[in-house]
């Protein structure tokens, strides 16, 4: 049916409205950013051509590489934390347990609330003097474990990662749950006839059935980790002394605080580039396994 002439037209009309809005509003700004990234511009008044100067300066700035490192930490901990935990929760909740609706709702709560609230909440958890975490450690007699969670560079990125995982885990739970729901009953019944039950069935049959969706989750998790901003901006402001800065914060500070808009645009192009590279690598890996 794909070769019918009418179908071609249908495809065009089906894709056109989405593409039209998308290209005009989402892709044009990327083009503009690319243009500004080779300019010297403070955001006001005249600009001048700078060639690759901005890129060269960025790539030779230690602070930028620190922010890249922090992004990688968020990406890796995000992948390790969110995807397996989300999948585990989805698998457990897919079993039709009593009260699973309530657990599902509560599990999704952190996704629903705004980043402002998440940051306020985790600020309360990590506070050195009266924070929940240090209080809890004190209560169980582990005073030696108390830390300045967000101020000490040994702990700060880990602390942020945990808040980040907390905020997003429910999202992956829901995405995976939706996929699990679509596994036809016949598959499960067939598996049962073959004697595959419990863990074996989950590993051999259920998970492969939702592999596509897991890939969706992985890619989305990576793209999100490169764009994380609000949570860190409110929780630590990227500090102390750039220790928790990520690329988007570095970009924002360059463009809007230090008024080097061209430079900031170049950073944003690099963010785009880096996430593209990682995602195409992941996609290739995924495809190789397919073969």
């Amino acid at each position, binding site marked *: 049916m794909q070769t019918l002439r009418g179908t071609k037209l249908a495809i065009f009309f089906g894709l056109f409205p989405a593409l039209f809005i998308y290209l005009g509003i989402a892709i044009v700004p990327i083009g503009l950013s690319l243009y500004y990234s080779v300019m010297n511009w403070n955001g006001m008044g005249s600009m001048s051509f700078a060639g690759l100067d901005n890129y060269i300066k960025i790539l030779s700035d230690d602070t930028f590489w620190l922010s890249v490192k922090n992004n990688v930490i968020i990406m890796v901990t995000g992948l390790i934390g969110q995807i397996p935990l989300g999948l585990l929760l989805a698998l457990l909740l897919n079993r039709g347990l009593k009260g699973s609706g309530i657990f599902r709702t509560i599990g999704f709560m952190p996704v629903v609330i705004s980043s402002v609230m998440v940051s306020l909440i985790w600020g309360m958890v990590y506070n050195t*003097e009266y924070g929940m975490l240090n209080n809890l450690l004190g209560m169980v007699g582990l005073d030696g474990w108390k830390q*300045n969670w*967000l*101020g000490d560079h040994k702990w700060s990125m880990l602390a942020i990662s945990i808040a980040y995982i907390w905020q997003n885990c429910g999202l992956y739970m829901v995405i995976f749950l939706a996929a699990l729901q679509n596994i036809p009953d016949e598959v499960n019944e067939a598996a049962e006839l073959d004697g595959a039950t419990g863990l074996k069935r989950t590993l051999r049959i259920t998970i492969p059935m939702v592999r596509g969706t897991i890939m969706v989750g992985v890619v989305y998790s990576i793209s999100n980790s490169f764009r994380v901003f609000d949570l860190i901006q409110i929780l*630590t402001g990227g500090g*102390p*002394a750039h220790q928790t800065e990520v690329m988007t914060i570095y970009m924002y500070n360059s463009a809007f605080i230090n*008024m080097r808009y061209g430079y900031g645009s170049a950073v944003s192009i690099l963010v785009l580039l880096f996430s593209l590279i990682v995602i195409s690598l992941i996609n290739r890996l995924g495809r190789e396994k397919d073969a």
Partner: protein
Amino acid sequence: MNKTNKGKKAVLLGLVAMLTLLTAACGKDNAGGSGNGGNGTETITLNMMHQWTSPNVDNEVYKARIAEFEKQHPNIKIKQDGVPAAQYKTKLRTLAAGNNLADINVVWPGADLDPLVAGKLLEPINPLMENWTSILPEEALSGFNVDGQQYAVPTKQSFVDIIYYNKEMFAQVGYDQFPDTYDKFIDAVTKLKEAGITPISLGDKEQWPLQSSYVSIIGDRFTGSDFLPAVLEKKAKFTDPEFVKALSVIEELAKLGAFNTDANNMDSVQAQDYFIQGKAAMHISSSTVDGRVRINNEEADKFGIAIFPSVEGGKGDPKKSAGVVQYGIAIKSGLSEKKKAAAEEFLKFFVNEDLYKELIRNGIVVPAKVEMPEDGSKYLEEMLALTGNGTAPVFDAVVPTQVVDVLQNGLQALIIGQETPEKLAQEVQEALDELN
């Protein structure tokens, strides 16, 4: 899927199709509306962007003033755009990028104003200045003056270096008065620490406190007030020993354990609370904070105010306090004659003696020479006496933001021992050199 459901979906689809089609048309309709308010009729609409959204006393005063203006000028409407303070500059800069400022804007002096002037986005207001010559001193206006052209008039004065201290705690370690030399100050800090009291509550998460409230005045004590302008003219350097000494003071305080351990993660408001609850002996912040510390606090008499003590061999005047004028009101360039006239009318009305008096009545320091009203707060009187002996410049009001950014991050590193004063001074100087 039943029929009613399908029906609903069809309706929705239709709705969306309509909306999508309308997009273009709607755009054209609105083009005239938002751009130019006064369409030849009697009423003139002026857009004004400000950051007076939070429920503060001075914000209420400003808003009441705008309402009063509209009442007295029925043919001029002020359309306000209140932008949350933390993102005000982001919005201002985005609008500036599109050459699309509001008709009336709130702007900051010095380094923040320069790019707006360079981009020719603001209208000089020289012809109006005779309105304020009698009440506003030269110093209050100079921050908004670029190459002899005046671009804004300030509404509020802020002294950024006020040391709020807990009298009881200081008495406890043998100080009935706030120490007047640096050595005594350090002695007090040491004794407070020994007594198990956090000497200074600091909340530097937003990074401005150490730079603005600390380095501005400590720097001035060592270098004198001519230093920062001289650095900008390349006649002095941040690496000069006087400035490095100033940074060393912060390092010394950190090493003494003068600050709370999570100084880099508390925000300034949390640090205030910490002090007000009696968990620390001092808090250094702006004069505006007195509203929370004393003016609206039942236990106000526990707290005293002071400025940073004199330092040995310092070139600065130890009586000076670091101050900056705030909230300059500026008019956008290129307005039509009618709108420009209306905006000037507004400016004259908004920033006048009545506004300053009203602010004083609410405990706010103003840059103008106006008489203290009878019912004024005694705390404000004390504040004015403390800060009335000469004004030192505030670091970020003079130095370009890129350089300020380097200093602020360095200060955060300095208080956790990851940076030395010498190295920081060098980095700040390099950041400045790179600009030119």
